[in-house]
């Protein structure tokens, strides 16, 4: 009964978000994010009807649709990256390279694991795949936040909401899926509550944060030093190297 209530609340919130996005025209500012919400709404509504009409089909469709929403969830990362780092081409470049590295490493890891554990059932593979994709999302979010902190980039209200909502959902899902794989079916009830509870939390945060569009705060001035990066970085590096060698020599003496 409680899970049905949470399900319905989720559907209502998603519908309200989509209506508000069209009315407030935020849909044009965050197209990938709203595509994700629309996808989740379609899947949830479809599964709700299936569960009511033919419960057997519901179980057949659950994991494939879950996987589809999971992939669509990458759109949220793209949106976070776009809105947080787009005004900073240098920082965005670092984030792009880091993201590609994370994708590459994770897929290599998943590929190796799949070759080493061929006896897994399709369901177990799907659960593990979901967990691994959550790992990618968590690592991507963490790397974006590291770059944001390192370069002291200000995050706007909309992007902050996207990050908090998605981060809380991804983090909770990852922990819950890991515990589920470890503890087995006895953890299923708690897993369901954690999963839907964190998603409801994320929806609420998104609803509040994206109610209106707030432009990302961007430093106003760009200076004439735009082309001097190589020279500045090279000179700074040279000085720092000499400093390090001085300190090393002193420590030895």
């Amino acid at each position: 009964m409680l899970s049905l209530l949470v399900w319905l609340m989720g559907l209502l919130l998603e519908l309200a978000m989509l209506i508000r996005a069209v009315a407030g025209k935020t849909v044009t500012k965050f197209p990938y994010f709203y595509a994700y919400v629309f996808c989740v709404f379609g899947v949830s509504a479809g599964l709700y009807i299936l569960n009511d009409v033919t419960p057997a089909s519901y179980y057949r469709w659950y994991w494939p649709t879950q996987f589809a929403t999971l992939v669509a969830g990458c759109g949220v990362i793209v949106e976070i990256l776009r809105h947080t780092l787009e005004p900073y081409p240098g920082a965005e470049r670092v984030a792009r390279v880091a993201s590609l590295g994370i994708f590459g490493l994770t897929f290599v890891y998943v590929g190796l694991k799949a070759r080493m554990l061929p006896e897994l059932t399709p369901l177990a593979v799907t659960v593990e795949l979901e967990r691994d994709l959550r790992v990618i999302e968590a690592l991507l979010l963490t790397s974006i936040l590291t770059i944001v902190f390192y370069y002291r980039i200000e995050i706007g209200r909309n992007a902050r909401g996207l990050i908090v909502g998605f981060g809380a959902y991804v983090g909770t899902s990852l922990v819950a899926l890991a515990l589920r794989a470890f503890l087995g079916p006895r953890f299923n009830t708690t897993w369901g509550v954690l999963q839907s509870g964190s998603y409801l939390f994320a929806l609420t945060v998104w609803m509040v944060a994206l109610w209106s569009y707030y432009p990302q705060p961007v430093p106003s001035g760009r200076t004439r030093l735009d082309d001097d990066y190589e020279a500045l970085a090279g000179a700074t590096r040279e000085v720092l190297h000499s400093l390090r060698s001085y300190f090393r020599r002193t420590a030895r003496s």
Partner: protein
Amino acid sequence: MTALIIYLLIGAGLFLFLLVMARRKNTPVEGCGEEFVQARHALRALQLGLLPANLVERIFDRGDFEYVTAESSREICKLFLAERKRISLIWVGRVRGEIRNLMHFHLGYSRFQSKLSLRTELRLALDFVLLLFACRTLQLWLYLRGPYSAPAMVGIAAGAAARVCRISEQSLAFLNPVASDSFQNDSTTGGAAV
């Protein structure tokens, strides 16, 4: 079990980052202009306030201590040593702070550079961290062993910071006031005085 710990650690790490983001104070977004002014301020503080040779010599010169030891009681000597230690620690702390400001200037500037090299950035990040770490080590050394325990290291730190200043000064040269006389002479008749 190991996999579970790794997944839990990744999840916990993400929550930690979210917490830091939530508690983070808004960083100023005045733009590069503001960053340049701050960097200029840090440079001036280092060059005029913290790194002049006579000041560094004054703080770390053993001569003062030897004079006080010869002329005063033990209590006065102890007080002198404690005060000198406090001053030396403040000095290193300030130097470290201003180097950090210069680092922030570099980051504030490089984040806009589409031609940014990832390798260079990683190396620079590592170098800045190591230099700041060296300053911290010096701070700890002075705290534990007193103000006269590492004169060579103090000299090197001061020299190194001065070299960083020189490089940064070249980057910030355009902020130096340009001949204001030319403005005054260019005023048209009856125009506002500059």
